[in-house]
């Protein structure tokens, strides 16, 4: 429901990160989104088109990598991946798990940019 504000924040962060690369255009933005992050990819994509208009990100691709929930299972003494978000039990031993290790991520992993060559030389 707040995908537009999330995408606006992505546009701001990416724009700031372009400071060392004057004139660069963004080709791709990669996000890592946990299964428990409460955001929907379709909605992110829809907002992305609108929010990037007139910015250095205009026309770029948004790639959303969804991360499954990973819990630490005490009896198994290891990290286990859950199949969904309907049951927080170890898929191996069936015991309830409350130690979340992955699944709430909402971050910009990396961007791919096209730089102007003379800037590259200067750097």
């Amino acid at each position, binding site marked *: 429901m*707040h995908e537009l504000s999330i995408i606006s924040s992505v546009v701001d*962060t990416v724009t700031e*990160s372009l400071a060392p690369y004057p004139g*660069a255009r963004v080709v791709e933005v990669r996000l890592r989104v946990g299964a*428990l992050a409460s955001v929907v990819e379709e909605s992110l994509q829809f907002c992305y088109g609108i929010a990037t208009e007139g910015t250095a990100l205009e026309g770029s691709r948004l790639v959303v990598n969804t991360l499954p929930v990973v819990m630490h299972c005490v009896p198994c003494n290891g990290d286990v991946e859950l199949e969904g978000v309907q049951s927080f*039990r170890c898929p191996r031993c069936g015991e*309830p798990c409350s130690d979340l290790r992955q699944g*709430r991520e909402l*971050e910009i992993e990396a*961007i791919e940019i096209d730089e102007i060559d003379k800037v590259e030389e200067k750097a």
Partner: protein
Amino acid sequence: MTTRIVELRRGILKKNDELAAGLRARYAAAGVLVLNLVSSPGTGKTAFLERTLKELRARGARVAALVGDLETDNDARRLASSGAPVRQINTHGICHLDAEMIAKHLEDWEGAELDGLDYLFIENVGNLVCPSSYDLGEAIRVVLLSVTEGEDKPLKYPTMFNSADAAVITKMDIAEPCGFDRAAALKNINEIRPGIRIFETSAKTGAGMQEWLGYLAEALAGRN
């Protein structure tokens, strides 16, 4: 043209997370226990909080509340009847409270300075989705579920229930006429958040309030 990959590894809600970390440090320094109450609209957060504030004040605790709604100050007026200092936050369309709104509304709040409080309650906007992403620096996130809502709500909104530290079932006084399946509700909450403390309450009759107040006292003692 040269193509370059720039690793960013930046949290999208970093600004909120940083502000929330600042608030958490302020709350800790002041020794105030902060609770963030989240639920659907109509679960009875305000009635539950109204009763909680009254009972705590009757026990001599120093309490205050911030209450978030899109519009109106109706809830603030209801809560203020408890005698506690209350401030309304109107988000004007935004579906959640964020750390910046909290910081702003804590400013110049005469009679509710943090170091003079035992408990600060934040009643979030009624919404089981978005508030789960916004840390307000709270020590305890309380998710509320009423007997009229359906026992499968934890399964429908796993993010919120999984991120909560305590769960409160409200309106227990009408559980029977509503055909509330208590065992199913408890099972579903435990399926999403194993081991969470669950309080079965009625703001109307006071059922379950003693247990809840005991939990608050323990949490405050644990903090100080």
